[in-house]
């Protein structure tokens, strides 16, 4: 990466600048590919860019950084994503 030599404070881009934000999750989105209609609403609305687009037009979820907000599940019109409590159902 190009570094700059100037007299001011510069930060450089880094994925995970605040660590693995996946550890913030209380609920985890679970994807059911069989139900997915490839509308990509979950992808465009995920605030974390943690929904990946797959070659077959469906999606997968990047759990390393997904903060578990549940927007993907809420916006999926066919319930192909559901939220489950981390560490199994209780």
């Amino acid at each position, binding site marked *: 990466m190009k570094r700059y030599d100037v007299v001011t404070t510069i930060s450089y*881009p880094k994925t*995970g600048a*605040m660590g693995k934000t996946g550890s913030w999750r209380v609920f985890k989105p679970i994807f059911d590919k069989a139900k997915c209609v490839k509308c*990509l609403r979950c992808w*465009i609305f995920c605030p974390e860019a943690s929904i990946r687009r797959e070659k077959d*037009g469906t999606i997968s979820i990047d759990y390393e*950084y997904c903060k578990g*907000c*549940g927007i993907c599940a809420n916006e999926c019109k066919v319930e192909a994503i559901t939220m489950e409590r981390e560490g199994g159902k209780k």
Partner: protein
Amino acid sequence: MAIKDFPVEECILQGNAACPGCPATMALRMVFKALGKNTVMVVPACCTAVIESLYPHTSFDIPVMNIAFEAAAAGASGVEAALRMQGKKDTTVLAWAGDGGTYDIGIQALSGALERGTNFIYICYNNQIYSNTGIQRSGATPYAAWTTTTVSGKTEFRKEMGDIIQAHHIPYSAQTCVSYPDDLYRKLKKAKSIKGPKYLEIMAPCPPGWRFSMEKTVEMGRMAVETGAWALYECENDVVTFNGKSKLILEKKIERKSIEEWIKYQGRFSHLFKPKKDTKRIQTLEDHIDQLWERYRKCYL
């Protein structure tokens, strides 16, 4: 545009400091899909400056200049002049500020840049509060809403920023909402194609600030539009066009939903529902929105 045709490139990196369900990162992802990487951003004090994360790292894969709370548009004017002097004509300059930094403290710098004809895009992401400093009222906070500085509900109505912007007669201004990616994307693309000052405002429902559960950010934006609390429109060379559901509301092709459909999900309005329903203040809110739309109809229909 179909969602599948949105560019896949991301400028907001994962693992940033935004709250779960944040409307600012959601909107920024869409904004950069429309503007592309050849963009320089100016960010004053606001949540976005926090979302950038901690030195020596940043979660923005794009050049960003941080500047004082009141100075977004002034900073952007300087960046635009510097790029112009370097002959970099195709780089987009984007000032991105909250409603506090726009409606309130930044309005002087903004008005100056618009009046000078600065070639840049100014975006206000409007979460209707000063959220970064712990939810204080702003000029964009609606009537009756709780904030930490309006503990029993705000007693004033929100300011009409769109009208103030239009009084500058700039080539393009628009209101959009994070819940309508196609509307947001199209307006950003249009803004990028026009020379001179462009102003956009994005309705950005904030889960911790408005006290709703974090999976409802998009839903709250949608309800803001469907209840008429927020209008989608654009103003190109002084001609105002309403868009999407707002156009249908304007033309009375659909009726706007009752404001209760929006506020009942937000803890910041819970004092209007318990211990006893405050019908008087709810009606005041409702009447204010009706007046707003009557004025819209008089001016733009």
